[in-house]
């Protein structure tokens, strides 16, 4: 290939990648968290980030119904919300998957503690909002890549933590509770010991681009 052809080719490939990925540039710790509003929840109401501005910290968790990893974390999130509610922490679960079993009607059942399948032992309902963004915009804005994928927003709407809830899907093998440690540090006015951890789980099911 001539040098000119190479440049043109590289530009074309880049354009293609940008067009097909359509994820925002990845967020960094300290960035202003993207705003979001009017997203319907399993409670029948519309939810906005501004509804929660009284919270000291917001824990935004991208999750879904079907993914075994996400399911394994539901109990931990319920327990976490219980533990940190009085300290001003608000958990919000958000789903964006383009998959029938992950949409609002099915979400209602799961949030109510029903139709749980193998991956939950207790049947407690969610003690936090579970919202569904059909447009998937919130997923793109946050560059969410997996379920579950956690973002902690501080009192100034800045990203203070990103990544996983803890270090193992198997609750018996958890050694580091990244999210809890981050919350404890932030509530004490300090930086999290690990502000960014690796997320793992299932891919987010994006709507296919029109071909």
């Amino acid at each position, binding site marked *: 290939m001539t040098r000119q052809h190479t440049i043109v080719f590289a530009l074309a490939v880049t354009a293609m990648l940008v067009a097909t*990925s359509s994820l925002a540039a990845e967020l960094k710790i300290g960035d202003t968290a993207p705003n979001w509003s009017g997203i319907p929840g399993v409670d029948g109401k519309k939810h906005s980030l501004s509804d929660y501005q009284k919270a000291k910290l917001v824990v935004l968790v991208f999750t879904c119904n*079907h*993914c*075994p*990893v996400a399911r394994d974390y539901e109990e931990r999130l319920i327990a976490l919300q219980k533990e940190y509610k009085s300290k001003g922490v608000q958990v919000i679960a958000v789903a964006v998957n383009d998959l029938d079993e992950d949409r609002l009607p099915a979400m209602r059942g799961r949030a109510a503690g029903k139709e749980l399948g193998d991956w939950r032992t207790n049947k407690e309902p969610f003690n936090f909002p579970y919202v569904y963004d059909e447009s998937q915009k919130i997923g793109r804005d946050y560059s969410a*890549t*997996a*379920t579950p994928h956690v973002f902690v927003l501080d009192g100034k709407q800045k990203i203070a933590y990103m*990544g*996983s809830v803890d*270090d*193992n*899907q*198997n609750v018996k*093998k958890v050694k*580091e509770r*990244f999210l809890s440690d981050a919350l404890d540090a932030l509530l004490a006015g300090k930086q999290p010991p690990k502000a960014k*951890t*690796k*997320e*793992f*789980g*299932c*891919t987010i099911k*994006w709507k296919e681009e029109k071909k």
Partner: protein
Amino acid sequence: MFADALCLRAAVPTAVVIALLVGGCSRPSSPQPSSTEPVKLEVIDEAAFTKVLEGHRGKVVLVDFWATWCKPCMELFPHTVQLHRRLADRGLAVVSVSFDDPDEDRAAAFEFLTRQGAAFQNFISAYGAGTRSVEAFKLEGPLPQVKLYDRLGKLRKTLGGKSGEVDPQELDRAVEELLGET
């Protein structure tokens, strides 16, 4: 003692012949393994993984990172098995690494691999389904992920993970390109 020596003399070349027959040199068309033939599955950490890659120097290596909790991974796996069947003779080495829990879900992983006829090296991460696996094997984002190493052992392409699902056509093209390199 005499008999022993004789036996040994006969045993070694016989063993070599058997090994050749079983292990096989390059054959024009490998017989399809039965889908119930037991496969191998070993626990692995990052140090052992490096050794596995080194052992395949000279071949193009495809590493398929999967798990039984990852549906798209299990849907992609037959394609990986096909690549092995089609291209092993042309110098493609296929390796699978599962991020299932090595204690609780090893049996499920083994069962899946057996049903798939995964007649290549299969491993299960010592660290199971967690961040340590992601870090140890240097993955970015969720599963599925497929890594391709060239004949010199250099990582040349990663598919899936943060960039979305693995596209089988893109994978085929990348494998062919690397096989074609001298």
